[in-house]
């Protein structure tokens, strides 16, 4: 773990951060505890608050750096029809897209790469909440289909990190159709005998949760992540009751049987690598011949076994 952090993740994240090193964002306020965190600390800590352990939202660039060995390559995603409905609300959809692209330097809300995770070849797709709330339209559907095809071509597992408010309303029923469409993509991967592992990150709601996110062979999440179908406001308006403490948080979903584990970000790469190696029948990366009974965690929120 230590090697991986110092040799690779830190320099990588520094590179990512360098271009946004303006005095304005040298400090980040933790959205949970309100403490100011210096950006170097934040990056070194994988964007987890060192004061309260809140897992901040991060995008594909940070995720690739945190989860993959150096040398990943982008999986090309075919272009889709831009603004198929010529949608306009208070703003033109095309303008919203332009703004999101300028803000995130990404084509749309899901980025896909081929790479290695602790040496095991994987295809990794990461949804970007900063791009129009991670919403699923044609482009996200296309990205997931491309990811599925890449996984099948490589005979590699498909790992998806979800983060979305739901479907892209500006693409109307075409965005709704990405629910069955991404479901077909998942079915192809599974029928090819390959693992499909989902990491639901904060927040994962709406049509994304109700399609490919909930169809994983293994479901993982990060502490405190919001995961659900209906939004809290809609539920409160419908039932006219206050929602219970911790409602729709990862720990709540774990308790209700929807997640296999809630894993701290620092353990995510090791956990994913271990699960995929076991599913793919590969030798262990760090063979552990004997584990303390004490140390051998049952599935639990506390995360993976710490036999290091």
């Amino acid at each position, binding site marked *: 773990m230590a090697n991986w952090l110092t040799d690779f993740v830190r320099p990588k994240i520094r590179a990512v951060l360098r271009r946004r090193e303006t005095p304005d964002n040298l400090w980040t306020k933790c959205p949970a505890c309100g403490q100011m965190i210096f950006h170097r600390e934040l990056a070194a800590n994988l964007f987890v608050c060192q004061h309260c352990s809140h897992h901040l939202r991060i995008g594909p660039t940070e995720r690739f750096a945190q989860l993959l060995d150096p040398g990943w390559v982008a999986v090309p995603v075919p272009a889709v029809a831009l603004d198929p409905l010529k*949608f306009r609300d208070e703003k033109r959809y095309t303008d919203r897209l332009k703004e999101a692209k300028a803000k995130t330097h990404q084509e749309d809300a899901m980025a896909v790469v081929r790479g290695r995770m602790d040496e095991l070849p994987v295809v990794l797709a990461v949804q970007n909440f900063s791009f129009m709330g991670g919403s699923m339209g044609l482009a996200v*559907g296309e990205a997931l289909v491309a990811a599925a095809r890449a996984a099948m071509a490589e005979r590699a597992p498909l790992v998806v990190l979800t983060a979305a408010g739901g479907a892209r309303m500006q693409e109307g*029923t075409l965005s709704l*159709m990405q629910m069955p469409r991404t*479901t077909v993509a998942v079915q192809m991967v599974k029928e090819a005998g390959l693992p499909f592992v989902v990491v639901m990150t904060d927040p994962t709601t709406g049509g994304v949760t*109700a*399609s490919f996110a909930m169809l994983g062979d293994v479901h993982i999440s990060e502490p405190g992540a919001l995961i*659900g179908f*209906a939004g809290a406001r809609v539920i409160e308006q419908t039932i006219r009751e206050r929602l219970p403490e911790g409602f729709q948080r990862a720990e709540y979903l774990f308790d*209700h049987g929807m997640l296999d584990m809630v894993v701290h970000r620092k353990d995510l790469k090791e956990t994913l690598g271990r699960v995929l190696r076991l599913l793919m029948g590969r030798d262990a990366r760090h063979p552990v011949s004997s584990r303390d009974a004490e140390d051998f965690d049952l599935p639990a929120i506390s995360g993976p076994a710490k036999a290091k």
Partner: protein
Amino acid sequence: MSLYTFLDFEKPIAELETKVKELRALMQPGDLSIEDEVAKLEAKADQLLRQTYARLSPWQKTQVARHQGRPHFRDYVARLVDDFTPLAGDRMFGEDAAIVGGLGRFRGRAVMVIGHEKGADTESRLRHNFGMAKPEGYRKAVRLMRLAERFRLPVVTLVDTAGAYPGIGAEERGQAEAIARSTECCLDLGVPVVAAIVGEGGSGGAVALAAANRVLMFEHAVYSVISPEGCASILWHSAEKSQDAASAMKLTAQDLQRLKVIDTIVAEPVGGAHRSPREAMDTLGDSIGQALNELVGRDPMALKRERREKFLEMGRVAI
């Protein structure tokens, strides 16, 4: 069916029809001048009705699609399905009457029919939770679809829901997972699946029963990712912009056929399915029958493959 509620935009038609009724009440036998007037007014009302329904706005269609007088699942089953034998329960938690399903005989052929039921009066609306299903409803649908597949029965679904139910219990029991599994099941079946959007096709709660080989849709039904009200309040910050949202989202059968989201538009009687429910149900029956005739007897793998290919292409049409 004279006791249906008039929609706002039907007011001018309602006024003419009321006038006709009043005149008829006054009419004496052989009163030619009034008879003539009645005939004229009737012709005018009829013309206005045709004109109005020939160019309903997307928001007006939304209101028609939600009209209480439209036929509901139980009406379709009563009219189109013999020997209907409802099957209940998801075998995991409970029975959800928002989705009704069972075995039956459609035009002589044994089928599995599954659909949303909104209910027709206060009591039945509560019992069916206004057609808003909980996880149990979708899990029951999966159970019935698998049962159909085991006995090679085609699956017919009737979609009419504002959406899946947003509630604490529904979330606790995995609403999202239940919807995802139901969609997945539709896409996995080795038997024909025909879906009809008969009223409101509301979001994921509708798709869960509509990933079919053939998707039929009534002329004035709507099928959308979110309700126009919901879309307006999020994107326009005002529920009063529902009309604009309905237009922008392209939720009508006509738009969706152009976008290749649905396969067939089923014509409604003049003035909508709520004016002549029987005629509407029979027309839908014919369309379902035709779709089944095309699909029944086909190779199970081919049915599954074609259904998946169709959904894999969704949105890829060059627009």
